């Protein structure tokens, strides 16, 4: 009798646990039914292309959350990655426009990204500053530096190579998608299949336990911020490719979409933790919803409202399902 009630309880919990995903799929189905063009291969490609920068960002962010723990305020979080990405895009665009080669421009961007990551790492692991606060402040500083570098102008892409990310195809699949898929696979291998990745997750799971078992937690956390900055560097190229050059002001939207995708991903995962696959799925779904709402003719002014409501519904459901369990 008792066991049956436990079983029923668990079934309930699981059902509530799947609700976030069910709601999302229902929303997409609704869009699909109302806009027959939405469920086409062409549109799927569009959705994936649109999601690429955010996919790269959340891959970096999930590494940071894994290493630092998933408490939003005191745990690991890096809100500065979108600013790093935009700074890299700005530096690359300015240097390309001044006639330097893509290689030199990329090196300069990489140096800037790693410097930003290193400052984050030092402030968080040495000074013990709250990651949320540190990376939020870094976001402001990096955007400021980028505005100085680019003088807030639109800079058109002069180099053909970056445009290939959008225009070139490998076996009929856009090159950008192929590259991001490879990057995500490598990151997955690194974070989930290597000793380093497991140590990283151990550090985030329980800092004390990890330290007792001899892990250098601070070093792992610092490395996660450097990895995140590197992902920001990669994102820079996709920002350039997507906009066919640098335009000021893309960072705010990127940050919001990154955070949204990351926490949607956590709500999708069975144990409510931030995982890389969850985050990537979150990023793609956020792009799908944005494009989907546009296709069925929802006024642009409403999209933020829908996204905000989605965050709340999904996160509330995951909080409820945790309580039910």
């Amino acid at each position: 009798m008792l066991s049956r009630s436990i079983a029923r309880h668990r079934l309930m919990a699981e059902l509530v646990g799947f609700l976030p995903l069910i709601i999302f799929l229902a929303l997409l189905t609704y869009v699909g039914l109302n806009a027959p063009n939405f469920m086409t291969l062409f549109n799927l490609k569009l959705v994936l292309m649109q999601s690429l920068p955010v996919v790269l960002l959340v891959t970096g962010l999930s590494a940071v959350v894994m290493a630092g723990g998933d408490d939003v305020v005191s745990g690991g979080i890096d809100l500065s990655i979108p600013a790093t990405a935009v700074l890299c895009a700005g530096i690359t665009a300015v240097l390309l426009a001044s006639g330097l080669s893509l290689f030199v421009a990329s090196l300069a961007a990489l140096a800037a990204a790693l410097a930003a990551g290193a400052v984050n790492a030092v402030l968080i692991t040495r000074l013990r500053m709250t990651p949320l606060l540190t990376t939020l402040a870094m976001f402001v500083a990096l955007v400021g530096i980028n505005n100085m570098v680019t003088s807030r102008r639109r800079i058109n892409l002069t180099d053909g190579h970056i445009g290939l990310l959008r225009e070139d195809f490998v076996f009929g699949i856009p090159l950008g998608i192929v590259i991001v898929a490879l990057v995500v696979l490598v990151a997955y291998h690194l974070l989930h299949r290597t000793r380093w990745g497991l140590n990283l997750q151990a550090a985030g799971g329980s800092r004390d336990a990890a330290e007792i078992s001899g892990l250098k937690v601070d070093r792992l956390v610092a490395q996660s911020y450097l990895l995140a900055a590197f992902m920001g560097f990669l994102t820079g190229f996709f920002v350039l490719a997507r906009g066919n050059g640098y335009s000021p002001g893309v960072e705010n939207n990127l940050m919001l979409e990154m955070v949204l995708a990351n926490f949607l991903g956590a709500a999708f995962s069975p144990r409510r933790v931030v995982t890389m696959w969850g985050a990537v799925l979150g990023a793609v779904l956020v792009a799908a919803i944005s494009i989907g709402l546009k296709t069925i003719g929802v006024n642009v002014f409403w999209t933020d409202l829908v996204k905000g409501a989605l965050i709340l519904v999904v996160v509330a459901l995951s909080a409820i399902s945790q309580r039910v369990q």
Partner: protein
Amino acid sequence: MASETAGTPLWRDIVVRFGFLIVFALFVVFFAAWNPVFVQGQNLMNIIEGSAILMIIALGMTLIVATGGIDLSVGIALDFGAAFAIVAMKSFGIHWFGAACIGIAGGALVGLLNAALVVGLRISPFLATLGTFFIGSSVQRIFTNGGGPISYRQMPDEFRSLALGDVFGVPSEVIIALVLAAIYFFVLERSVWGRRIHAMGMQRSAAVVAGIKVNRILFLCFVMASATCAFGGLIAAANIRMFTPLSGFAYLLDAIAAVFIGAALHPRGRPNIPGTVAGVLFLGVVTNGLNLMGLNFNTKDALSGIILVAALALAVAQRNMRKS
């Protein structure tokens, strides 16, 4: 305290106690040397006047951070305060005082939503207020058809004097900020209620065990913080005689920075009103000083960002040295 620091060298003692204030003073000296106008009475009043709205927002933020949370929707509360007040006067012809009250109630709506999400649904404050931020921004876009301002040129003089009036030469926005700061100081630092808030922010489970009604406090704090931010909206609306959608967002990061600088200045590292005031004034001094240096807009932007990071790092480093 004296016995703890007895063995340390004098310079360390000085840095630990006054490090941030010394740097603050150095900034003032530097700006004054660059442009003597900086230390003139009129300019100092400009700094204080220019910091009034940030001050008000930072007060609300201090309260929320003291409970152990964070509020990303303070800017929305400011926007709602301005929008409700302007619309009440312009479209419904309501008396300016009634309109001001409606504005504050409009801001409090944002807090009610946050409180319902955080207390009722137990969503973490970061995510709940992020959701509120999204929804609030969208509501403003829908209402203004994409973000166009709502101007109200024939604003009653009394309402306009919320920003432009003065009492014995002190600008009224400064008076509003000071009165609110005094109320917050009393509530957070001198009342039983404030002690409960701090207890809850520092160790929530202990506070629950001690019988503190955590949920009720959280609820009131979110509503009070948002209602406070709406005052900032009233001043902004009175100042420019219009409601500009999404203008509150600009204050978010500075408010967070001021609160955390203030917390780092506190002996026990907790958010506190005098510290927040110091943080706000520091940010005001930097903004004003950089303006007077006549730098290019973009350069100024970059410098103030870098100074923000450095100031936070310094404040936290000082706190760490004090602890060790």
